[in-house]
């Protein structure tokens, strides 16, 4: 009894195009559930899912919680952000405790790259990576792919440019792997101090300026620029960033008519993206949010096929 995705979803780098397609194809029909009066299906009834968030996050956690509850799972939220518990030490003990409590699935967000794998290697429960350090954020990558595929019908041959702080972005990495596997052409655009030095070995085109990137792209995925980057000296100021790299409606005039604008959120309006772009006709940002719940439901559904405990629960069903 195996799931076609294996035991865990840790990242898109290790998935095949078939697996990604399966997740997207599964997410499509699940969208309808969120439009019903009773937004619930009994599929994961009896399953216990822990949302283990070592980093504060409202949007992602809520999205996962909706997905879990709409599948009738029991959810438990554990937030350690702001607590005095030291990182790292907790992770091994946390894994052992979860194992002992017979949790079916864990959704983990952690500040260290590789933390999701660390946990997955130590427990039998399904582990879903909700963002590990600067490594990957697979469900975000998947919902971005779904959003684009819905508009275009296919991702093959489409040109997507990821704009901003790729160096520190797990969303960027997941998008790069996901888009490449689905046959899209991928580019990045940002100041070189915010791109990995080895970026040219990742199979992406690099634009040093935003204008040619906008002219080239079928879609822009605009990443959030964090204040810390300016404080750490990667860029001189947020103001300069907006003036040189910001996605503004003025700059979008040179874009193709049907260009799509994505943003993983939360947005720094006026920094990496201007309000009239975020709220404008090219923006599919709200679609991303809707798709987020469906994608997460799909992932839960597909991974749950690999859980012996669920079989016991389902046998005692209606």
């Amino acid at each position, binding site marked *: *009894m195996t799931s076609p995705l294996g035991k865990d979803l840790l990242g898109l780098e290790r998935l095949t195009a078939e697996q990604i397609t399966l997740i997207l194809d599964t997410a499509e029909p699940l969208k309808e559930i969120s439009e019903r009066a*009773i937004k619930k299906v009994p599929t994961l009834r009896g399953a216990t899912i822990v949302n283990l968030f070592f980093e504060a996050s409202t949007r992602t956690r809520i999205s996962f919680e909706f997905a879990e509850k709409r599948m009738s799972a029991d959810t438990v939220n554990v937030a350690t952000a702001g607590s005095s518990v030291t990182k790292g030490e907790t992770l091994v003990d946390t894994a052992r405790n979860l194992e002992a409590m017979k949790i079916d699935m864990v959704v983990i967000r952690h500040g260290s790259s590789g933390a999701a794998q660390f946990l997955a290697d130590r427990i039998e429960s399904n582990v879903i990576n909700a963002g590990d350090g600067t490594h990957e954020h697979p469900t975000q990558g998947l919902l971005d792919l779904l959003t684009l595929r819905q508009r275009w019908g296919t991702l093959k041959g489409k040109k997507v440019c990821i704009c901003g702080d790729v160096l520190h972005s797990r969303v960027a990495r997941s998008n790069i792997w996901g888009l490449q596997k689905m046959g899209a052409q991928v580019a990045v655009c940002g100041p070189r101090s915010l791109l990995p030095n080895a970026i040219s070995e990742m199979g992406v085109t690099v634009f040093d300026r935003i204008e040619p990137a906008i002219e080239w792209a079928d879609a822009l995925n605009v990443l959030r620029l964090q204040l810390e980057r300016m404080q750490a000296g990667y860029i001189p100021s947020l103001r300069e960033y907006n003036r040189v790299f910001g996605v503004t409606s003025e700059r979008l005039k040179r874009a193709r008519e049907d260009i799509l604008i994505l943003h993983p959120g939360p947005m720094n309006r006026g920094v990496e993206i201007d309000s009239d772009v975020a709220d404008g006709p090219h923006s599919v940002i709200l679609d991303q949010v809707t798709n987020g719940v469906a994608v997460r439901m799909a992932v839960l559904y597909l991974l749950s096929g690999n859980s012996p405990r669920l079989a016991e629960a389902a046998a005692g069903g209606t």
Partner: protein
Amino acid sequence: MSPSQSVVLTARALERTLSRMADEIVEQNDGTEGLILVGIQRRGVQVAQRLAAVIATREGVEVPRGALDITLYRDDLQTVGPRPVVGRTEIPLTIDGMTVVIVDDVLFTGRTVRAALNELADFGRPSRVRLAVVIDRGGRELPIQPDVVGKHVEAERGDRVDVFVQEIDGRDEVILDTGKRA
């Protein structure tokens, strides 16, 4: 066709049967008022379409149709192996107070219909639910019975009864395969 297979209904026979079923549905409802035909994915959807077409010809009324995928409501998900593909569910209008006719190709254990009833309950409260199936092959595991039956077929546990439809399979035909009998 292999020696263990036999034709239960030919294309022509199937057409006649569907015609009669459509009449029965309208008869039981005393008209087309408040009717909605909901086909269970996959082939139940095509059957529902055919029934609606007959009703349109006979009664001159377009009865509303819906599609229901019951995968997420199955009670055997854990034992069936890798996750089955989820199909499209579409209920185009509110079913509160309507007469819902669930349409499926083959009625066997009754578990699919049980799942469909559960799922419909999440969409609203119909005033009445009826069940129309092309083939009733017996072997019920739940107290479920059809209101409209195309044909009864004597089949044993290991047998297969398949309804093939033009839209999916390229032909119209109902086949009984007893190949797995001891």
